[in-house]
């Protein structure tokens, strides 16, 4: 009846996951009860859960990422603490549990924290920057989000029901095959990631179509804001790379469930096929994450330097070049495979070449700042920290692109330091910069600056303390995924790294405080103008938060930095130009398709993990029926009458006129 699922699936004898699981789900359950008790349920259902508005979906993505970063950092501090006490001692985490923690940490941080964070920011900003009313397929967008959330839920369920993979964040065979991992841990990984992967792929399709087919009149490709360009590269890579990942994991599923021999040691299976396939996705994945980050830095640096982006064309070319090169370097993840000198040399050279377009971007940001009037707001500080820190991470990357050097530091803590250096300084700092930068656009009030700056310093110093020692220990021969050790020379550095993660947690505490204080003092922080940073692109030309239809009339774009130019002219002429002719606007209706579909997907995943076949069949039928029911709708949109549009836009225009007066006075 219940397949492999029995009461023994709950880790009764392992107090740490048991209490962590009960605690986590207890908190979530308490919040759900509180919401229902207070009567917020219908509001949440109407305004958020079933919303197909890209701004709402974006906020939910970022919220999901925020919850997952807490989980991922909990894993991080547990591992660092284990290593801080694991010198000549077994530490407090048994190896069995420690292995699950580092696997969960990587899986969650990349696929359920960084991905939702950047896709969420794309959702919030991208249609607004393009000057359009929504993404190409609004309901599909909601489906994407809920499938991602479904995957995140499955990963976290493994805490309390069963176990998680002990294989690392990429389940390398033969360890991940049934022979060596007979439990449900790898299955949790596979189904959670497959379900979330479908969501990501659909997001990619949606955004490619949005960028290439829906743009405001006059928004030619070479007038698009840099964030849109970088996001375009990222979503193209999603569509090019995620299907490979889906196929690879499907093969591992077939190996585990139906006795296929893709990656087994027996019957001709080829383990290195997995490494090749998974990194043919995995390396582009790095750029899927970091390209939107580059876009965020471009927006932030030009806004807070008060200058247009230096070398726009070269930025575009560099972004596209990185997009192509990203697909040609996967083998550098396993130079030690033994593919031979020629193959290694090719991939080494390709890898080093990526430093060239990246360097172009670095210099463009520096020249954008050069002789600019730099405002040290929190997003700008994250960007400055990025430029310094990412350069260090990039250089260690080029070091490892040299195959003989890579043989020395392969699988050591040097590698761990390198990729945390590029992902934290590249993606996480960008996520925080973008979060601070677009928060007023999404909510209508700014974040408290002081706590943001405190969080910034804790994070940056914490990062250096946590990861610079790892470079050193890598040179001293410390390998990754160590559970305990007896090398005296490493011990002090392990303690420094522990101090680093504690500081990062203080940074997180500052960010939570910042959020609480912001919501308490929102009236003082309110952005009346829609343009709190004196910025340049079209998202700032509408109100904060924008009306559901984004723009009363679609903006006409005639140049790069369209909003900035219009603003300068308006300041000069003391007017916003004639009031446009308002018409009725059609906006997508809410749809529960996404959440219902994810509901069935979660059960499908759970049923497959535990071999509950009847439930899997029912869930599949349920998901299909949901799509058919969605296809049966007759009205996909509702109409906002012109009078209502005019009322909203007139309020926006008068607020904006007041803001322009202020700007003129300031000059």
């Amino acid at each position, binding site marked *: 009846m219940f397949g492999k699922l029995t009461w023994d699936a709950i880790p009764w004898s392992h107090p740490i996951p048991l209490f962590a699981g009960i605690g986590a789900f207890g908190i979530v359950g308490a919040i759900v009860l509180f919401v229902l008790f207070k009567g917020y349920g219908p509001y949440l259902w109407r305004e958020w859960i079933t919303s197909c508005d890209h701004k709402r979906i974006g906020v939910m993505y970022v919220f999901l990422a925020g919850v997952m970063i807490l989980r991922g950092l909990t894993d991080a501090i547990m591992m660092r603490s284990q290593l801080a006490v694991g010198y000549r001692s077994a530490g407090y985490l048994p190896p069995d549990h420690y292995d699950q923690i580092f696997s969960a940490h990587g899986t969650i941080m990349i696929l359920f924290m960084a991905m939702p964070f950047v896709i969420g920011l794309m959702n919030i900003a991208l249609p607004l920057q393009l000057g*359009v009313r929504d993404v190409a397929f609004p309901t599909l967008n909601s489906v994407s989000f809920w499938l991602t959330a479904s995957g995140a839920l499955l990963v976290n369920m493994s805490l309390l029901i069963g176990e998680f993979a002990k294989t690392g964040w990429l389940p390398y065979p033969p360890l991940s095959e049934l022979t060596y991992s007979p439990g449900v841990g790898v299955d949790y990984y596979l189904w959670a990631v497959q379900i979330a992967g479908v969501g990501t792929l659909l997001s990619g399709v949606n955004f490619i*179509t949005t960028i290439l*087919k829906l743009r405001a009149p006059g928004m030619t490709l070479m007038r698009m804001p840099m964030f849109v360009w970088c996001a375009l590269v990222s979503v193209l890579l999603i569509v090019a790379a995620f*299907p490979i990942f889906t196929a690879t994991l499907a093969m591992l599923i077939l190996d585990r469930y139906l006795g296929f021999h893709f990656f087994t040691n*027996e019957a*001709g299976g*080829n383990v290195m096929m997995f490494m090749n396939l998974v990194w043919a996705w995995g390396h582009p994945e790095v750029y899927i994450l970091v390209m939107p980050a580059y876009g965020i830095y471009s927006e932030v640096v030009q806004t807070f330097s008060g200058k247009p982006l230096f070398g726009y064309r070269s930025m575009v070319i560099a972004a596209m070049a990185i997009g192509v090169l990203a697909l040609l370097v996967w083998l550098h993840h396993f130079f030690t495979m033994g593919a031979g000198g020629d193959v290694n040399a090719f991939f080494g050279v390709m890898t080093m070449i990526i430093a060239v377009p990246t360097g172009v971007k670095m210099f463009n940001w520096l020249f954008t700042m050069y002789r600019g009037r730099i405002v040290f707001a929190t997003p700008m500080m994250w960007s400055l920290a990025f430029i310094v820190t990412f350069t260090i991470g990039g250089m260690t990357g080029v070091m490892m692109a040299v195959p003989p050097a890579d043989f020395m530091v392969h699988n050591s803590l040097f590698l761990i330091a390198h990729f945390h250096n590029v992902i934290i300084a590249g993606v996480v700092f960008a996520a925080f910069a973008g979060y601070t930068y677009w928060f007023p656009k999404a909510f209508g009030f700014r974040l408290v600056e002081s706590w943001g700056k405190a969080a910034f310093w804790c994070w940056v110093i914490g990062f250096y303390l946590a990861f610079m020692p790892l470079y050193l220990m890598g040179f001293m021969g410390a390998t990754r995924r160590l559970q305990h050790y007896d090398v005296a020379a490493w011990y002090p550095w392990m303690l420094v790294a522990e101090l680093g993660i504690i500081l990062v947690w203080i940074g997180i505490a500052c960010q939570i405080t910042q959020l609480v204080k912001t919501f308490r003092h929102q009236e003082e922080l309110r952005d009346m103008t829609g343009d709190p940073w004196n910025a340049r692109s079209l998202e700032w030309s509408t109100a904060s938060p924008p009306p559901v239809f984004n723009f009363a009339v679609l903006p*006409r774009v005639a140049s790069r930095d369209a909003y900035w130019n219009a603003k300068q002219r308006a300041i000069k002429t003391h007017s916003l130009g004639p009031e446009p002719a308002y018409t009725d606007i059609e906006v997508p209706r809410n749809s529960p398709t996404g959440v219902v579909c994810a509901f069935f997907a979660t059960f499908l995943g759970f049923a497959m993990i535990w071999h509950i076949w009847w439930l899997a069949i029912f869930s599949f039928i349920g998901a299909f029926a949901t799509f058919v029911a969605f296809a049966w709708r007759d009205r996909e949109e509702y109409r906002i009458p012109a009078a209502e549009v005019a009322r909203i836009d007139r309020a926006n225009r008068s607020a904006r006129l007041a803001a322009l007066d202020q700007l003129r006075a300031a000059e």
Partner: protein
Amino acid sequence: MSITIDDIDFAGAPVADVPLASHAERSVASRRIVTAFGFWVFLLSDVIMFSALFATYVVLVDMTAGGPRGKDLFNISAVALETGCLLASSFSCGMASLGARARINLMYYGSMIATLVLGAAFVLLEIRDFAGMVAQGAGPSRSAFLSGFFALVGCHGLHVTLGLLFLLTMMAQVYAKGYRVDILRRLLCFALFWHTLDIIWVGIFTVVYLLGVAV
């Protein structure tokens, strides 16, 4: 705030004073274009997934672990019959599109039923083929070669099966709602999906079956 067109490009060069209408008309595409384009991109992703399976198959094709090779297993005339069914179904699918566009019920439903029958025949022939191989002890767990074979060809068969569900849904939709613009858009997506499966089958027929019996 309306934005006029005399802005200066910050690269330094003045923007050519293009009449706005030419940009305006081009940049906001129709729903039909948007939907079809999005579905194309989705299909491309599907093709990439198949290419991963093709690559795996080609790498594993000689890994027979002492078991049968393609030459020993493939019945090329049965596969030719499958191919004939699928190619003919693509033709009838095209006729269904024309029928829907012309709003001729007989042509639309007749062609859709023909597509359904041919597609189902393809799937049944494939299942019979698979069952025969498993009965000979040449199932997917026999060798890495057979794993690659069953995954690649089976994944295509699964797509055709899902396509049949899609087909039935589209017949029901036209029946319930008529030849509405949004239904025709979906029908366009179905047709794209069905033809793509045909193209992938041409790849499978060549790489798996023809090269398999030739070696």
